């Protein structure tokens, strides 16, 4: 488990601690680390609560060091074939990208695209 943020557990009024996990081969794109504890701002630049759509962009821009962004995001959407689970529930049940992050949420990205 790697702490990829300098202040991982710090939850203040302005930040939300979350756990992001990558499995099914996606961890390869994120420094081979399965779990990433992040502390994200509670509001985006426009003052709206941060949602998964924001998180995905954040992961792409700030967390992912691999250059193969298209393995994770295609046309501004999570690549088809990658499942997103919010606290174990399919994100389709939670409003997909518009789901507003809550403190201590577990967001899991699972690729179904890789072989075995």
């Amino acid at each position, binding site marked *: 488990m790697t702490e990829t943020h300098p202040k991982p557990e710090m939850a203040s009024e302005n930040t939300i601690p979350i756990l992001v996990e990558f*499995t*099914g*081969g996606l961890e*390869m794109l994120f420094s081979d680390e399965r779990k990433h504890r992040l502390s994200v701002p509670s509001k985006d630049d426009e003052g709206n609560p941060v949602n998964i759509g924001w998180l995905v962009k954040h992961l792409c821009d700030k967390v992912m060091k691999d250059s193969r962004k298209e393995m994770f995001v295609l046309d501004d959407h999570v*690549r*088809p*074939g990658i*499942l997103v*689970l919010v606290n*174990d*529930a*399919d994100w*389709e*049940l*939670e*409003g997909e990208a518009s*789901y507003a992050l809550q403190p201590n949420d577990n967001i*899991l990205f*699972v*690729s*179904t*695209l*890789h*072989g*075995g």
Partner: protein
Amino acid sequence: MARTLCATCKTARALIIRPKNHQKLCKACFIAVFEAEIHHTITTTSLFSPGDRIAIGASGGKDSTVLASVLKTLNERYNYGLNLILLSIDEGIKGYRDDSLETVKRNAVQYDMPLKIVGYDELYGWTMDQVVEVIGKKGNCTYCGVFRRQALDRGAKMLGIKHVVTGHNADDVAETILMNLLRGDLPRLARSTSIVTGDSTSDVRRSKPLKYAYEKEIVLYAHHKKLDYFTTECLYSPEAFRGSARSLIKNLERVRPSAILDVVRSGEDMAKLVPEEVTGISQCKSQKVSLSSADGEEEGSGGCGNTNGRDSGGEMADMEKKLQLDEEASSREVDVTSLASTADGQNHDRIASKSVGRKRDTSRKLVKQTLGTCKRCGYMSSQDICKACTLLEGLNKNRPKMEIVIDVEDEESSTLRRRMEGVTLAAG
């Protein structure tokens, strides 16, 4: 956001939304219905008989791990009376199989099944690393795939087992159907849709019990059951054509999740329109009577309905309605074919005229394909000399020259390699 309750038990929170019918289920009900549907596929196709020894082609990946887990569960729950064995193939790719074979070894302990690992080197005299040295990274998947399919047969034969099951899922089958459609390869399209290949006369039969299971649900099943599986990307570049077929499938799924099973069903229906003399498939069916009748039944219930699966009773009205439509459609198709062959030129809808046109073309062009055995190695093949032997012949011819060149000059070898790739591809 308000929590959605499970459509089946109406008490637990729904965590899964099923791609094929949008049903929202809790974890326990999802696991139950997933297993019930595999059981349904197995029973309606009479896939196994009590006392059968079954080799599970195990890679340590999600599909074969789920297959092993589900088969173990169902074998115990429904007293199939099966003797299950894990069979793994070591392609000889350094750094690729090591971890996945470790996973299979753990699975063998977890599922209490014997494990047999067979290497390409002992089967063919070539590891995939050596093959790539000769033909390059492009196109090597063909070799790997051809070798792997036969490796499972050979490994099974070595163990005295006559039936190998593989973890191919609905997405895989849909992808293969699309690829064969795009290539215009109707004989292979027909064969790739059937749940079993081979019959009582062949040394080893192969089947795909997860044929109707969505890849998404397989991954979710593995996740919620906390199964121990391994994911890895093959170190050699993925086959481009299959890759694009896969992307197409995944994009279709995003727009309309039922598309995957619909493609599988379309493939099955198209397979029925392919003339027998072209596919060589009817031969197996007539020899294996129980199977051919099971096929007929399968087309109605599709392994996904609930005629047998009491667990899933009442949950799938939509699906059933659709299946009834499918059944009606398929009976219409039979009419169309018989009409088309007797009264050519009238009552043609698009499908019928296409199939007739195709029939003429293919039967003229394609050599009659019947499932027999390779004259060289004796394994199941639709041609005189099987693909593996043809590929091996090419490899063995190239080997001495290549080894010298590779040792001496790297740059030169890559150009030669490229040239060799052309040669072997032409030969294949």
